[in-house]
């Protein structure tokens, strides 16, 4: 007889971590904070351009015509919009590396996984930028259309990371499951 679904069991069963796991978790969080800070040491010019380009093209599909002004600046209806580091999700990716790194898996597996995560986050980020643009074009105030949507996006990423982190404590290696 199959057991209950994993998601339900994780919700119903309180997570009991050993002392070692708790220490590991703290180290992960400390490293995540450090990684986020490190990400801001760089300007990520190319990534800004790529993010703005993806956003620009997605907006074009939605009928919103952004005009490129510079590498990381676009204009829409006379207002300049500048793409900065948070707009690229690079800080989120950096912060997620220590949290998603699976110690039970080989380094090469983790690198490959983080590369996939990077691509996923890039697409997700372009999508959230365009969604906020569409909302803003529909007369939704900027704070709601962009900033609240940004917070919601960060939250969704956090939920995914946290769920995955909990799963990694329950079944350490996805390679074993495969």
């Amino acid at each position, binding site marked *: 007889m199959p057991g209950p679904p994993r998601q339900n069991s994780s*919700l*119903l*069963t*309180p*997570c009991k*971590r050993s002392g070692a796991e*708790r220490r590991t*978790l*703290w180290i992960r*969080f*400390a490293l*995540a*904070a*450090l990684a*986020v*800070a490190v*990400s*801001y040491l760089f300007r990520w010019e190319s990534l800004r351009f790529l993010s*703005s380009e993806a*956003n620009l093209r997605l907006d074009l599909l939605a009928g919103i015509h952004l005009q490129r002004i510079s590498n990381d*600046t676009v204009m829409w209806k*006379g*207002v*300049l*919009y*500048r*793409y*900065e*580091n*948070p*707009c690229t999700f690079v*800080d989120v990716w950096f*912060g997620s590396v220590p949290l998603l790194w699976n110690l039970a898996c080989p380094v090469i597996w983790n690198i490959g996984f983080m590369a996939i995560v990077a691509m996923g986050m890039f697409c997700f980020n372009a999508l959230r*930028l365009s969604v906020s643009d569409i909302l803003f074009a529909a007369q939704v105030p*900027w*704070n709601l259309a*962009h*900033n*609240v949507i*940004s*917070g*919601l996006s*960060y*939250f969704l990423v*956090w*939920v995914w990371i946290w769920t995955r982190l909990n799963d990694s404590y329950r079944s350490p290696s996805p390679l074993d499951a495969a």
Partner: protein
Amino acid sequence: MKRLLQLLAVLILTSAWVMAQSGTGTGAGSSSGTNSSTGSMNGQTGNSNTGAPGTQGSNNGTSATPGQSTSGASSAGETGSSTSGNSGTAGTSTGAGTTTDTGTTNSAGGNANANGNAGANSNSKGGGEIALGTFLGLAALWEVSRRKKSAVRPF
């Protein structure tokens, strides 16, 4: 206790994020300071420098370079000691061995500040405090919801 630790971890992460974000804010910065140095006169008579403009004061209030006399007998505050100030850029000599530099440096940075507002007509595509508040609020609601679901309810 465990939940508290988790909450603290979230707060640490978010504060690091905020700090990093403010670090990249390239807004306008201004510094103003007054360098004043009063030195003993070197009464080198006969070497008159007329019309020499005052030289630049020193930076960071470390030591004042001697001022040049604009008229009359040459005198320079050789042993001037700076008292305060940050960066005096335009130095003016005021005669006998007294150099007073008053510098005001205003450096307008880039276009956008941490809040993403650069001037009148610019928005940043970054998040800002509202995004952070939304994230924290949702995370707190989620945590409470998870806690309620995981609680064992008696019949």
